């Protein structure tokens, strides 16, 4: 078996999710090559070559891949991947965008968002917002799979010394052009891989009040997330949404503040190790999954939390 892992990166650094996907590839077994497609992405290729368990790093460095347009990546990966038994990518917005194109071009099914590897052709994945867990078997010759990064412990990012090989395959489908990007800037850890996440919901009432959560988060080195209701109401940007259709997180500690605990929200955070809920409604469903529940008005509890944390941290 030979597995092609598509690296997730921003042209300058390798995203940790790639290491989680390599871990999923190791669980399948076989030679693991990593494809880094981007523009001026040499540093990413070097980082990928150091990852544990990687056999070879293939680099497709071209302006056509600079913005990770699905049309171009789809053609590239279908071409490079056709000699492999498995093609894997993280189930982030880049992987979700181009991988189904790869599957369609190769005329194979895709298995989305796997949480476990049962064997080379059998995978476990959530359906119905995680309310059911399906074990599915693929009968295709090439398995196109997206991986839920939080479900696999990352391989080491140092110590490996894979060979790096340049590819000169340029696939510009000419169907789409990049226009602009508005990226959220934050000094906090990445939401999807943070060890602690503090999330706010509709109960926060407005965007200004999220500052309270940010202060608490900064004391703990945490990321800040949100429910859909908080994003829809415009309190915070979309990249902070946790849930079925937002980001999947599984930190050591998840603190839900003013979030009711709808199934679509739980789908994104119920694999967290320890869950804390702060909500003034003691009937809120979030308490059914919380390890520690505090029935309180968040506008009193959050400032107190900041004070108490200052004492112990």
């Amino acid at each position, binding site marked *: 078996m030979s597995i092609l892992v598509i690296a997730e990166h921003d042209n300058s650094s390798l995203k940790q999710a790639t290491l989680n996907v390599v871990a999923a590839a190791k669980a399948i077994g076989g030679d693991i090559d990593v494809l880094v497609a981007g523009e001026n992405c040499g540093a990413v290729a070097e980082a990928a070559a150091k990852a544990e368990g990687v056999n070879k790093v293939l680099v497709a460095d071209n302006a056509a891949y600079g913005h990770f347009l699905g049309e171009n990546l789809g053609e590239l990966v279908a071409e490079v991947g056709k000699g492999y038994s498995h093609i894997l990518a993280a189930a982030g917005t880049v992987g979700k965008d181009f991988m189904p194109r790869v599957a369609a071009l190769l005329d194979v099914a895709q298995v*989305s968002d796997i949480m476990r590897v049962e064997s080379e052709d059998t995978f476990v994945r959530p359906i119905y917002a995680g309310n059911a867990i399906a074990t599915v078997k693929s009968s295709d010759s090439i398995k196109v799979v997206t991986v839920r990064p939080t479900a696999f412990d990352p391989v080491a990012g140092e110590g490996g010394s894979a060979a790096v090989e340049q590819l000169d395959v340029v696939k510009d489908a000419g169907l789409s052009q990049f226009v*602009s*990007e508005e990226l959220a800037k934050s000094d906090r850890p990445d939401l999807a891989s943070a060890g602690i996440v503090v999330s706010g919901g509709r109960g926060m009432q407005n965007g200004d009040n999220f500052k309270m959560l940010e202060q608490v988060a900064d004391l703990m080195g945490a990321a800040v997330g949100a429910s859909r209701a908080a994003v*829809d109401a415009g309190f915070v940007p979309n990249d902070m949404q946790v849930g*079925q259709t937002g*980001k999947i997180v599984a930190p050591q500690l998840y603190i839900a503040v003013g979030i009711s605990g709808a199934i679509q929200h739980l789908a994104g955070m119920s694999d967290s190790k320890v869950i*804390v809920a702060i909500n003034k409604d003691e009937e809120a469903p979030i308490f059914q999954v*919380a390890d*520690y529940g505090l029935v309180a008005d968040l506008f009193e509890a959050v400032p*107190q939390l900041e004070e108490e944390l200052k004492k112990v941290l």
Partner: protein
Amino acid sequence: MKVLVAVKRVIDYNVKVRVKPDNTGVDLANVKMAMNPFCEIAVEEAVRLKEKGVASEIVVVSIGPKASQEQIRTALALGADRGIHVETDEEVQSLEAAKLLKAVVEKEEPKLVILGKQSIDSDNNQTGQMLAALTGMGQGTFASEVVVEGDKVNVTREIDGGLMTVALNLPAVVTTDLRLNEPRYASLPNIMKAKKKPLDNMSPADLGVDIAPRLSTLKVEAPASRQAGVKVADVAELVDKLKNEAKVI
């Protein structure tokens, strides 16, 4: 320009999903079914394009059992002009759905195809992208804004780091995210009118598509359930527990 919208009949998003005791799937007997929420957003976007004078005709297509006609009628009541029902009682997976939709696209030749980014049953997030690849179209996935300008469509996409705008040549495929719009409700007179709108029925065989699934589901289980923990009296107790019991801070 003609807009094609694909809609799927799924379990209503408010229904508590139950896994069947024999682990073969999810219990769908006597549960409320509805249009997939992302498909509602797709229909709404098409209707808004028509209201702006950008779209001239909206064709809605659904693949599924006879009862999927209800969702097509809903879309017609919301403002679509005519429906196509690709009727089958078999399970249709994403790749096969994309092939069926490709056959419909070849017949209808729409300038824009709008789909939901995922259906809330299989949560696959594949069909729109597969359709785009099979038809050689560009794709604007996870859209939060769609602006048609001449022979291009600008799509603002919700991505992990924020927002990204791409320009696609028409014809193109767009898949909707939650914040693209807020769908309206159908009015009673429009529900009545929808009953008279044309609805074509065809089978996968009529479209010449083999829908045999490539993935087989070996079993479906309930997720490991989390137990509710304890209620703490105050913030001091909470911090104490996090530090000394759970040891996570």
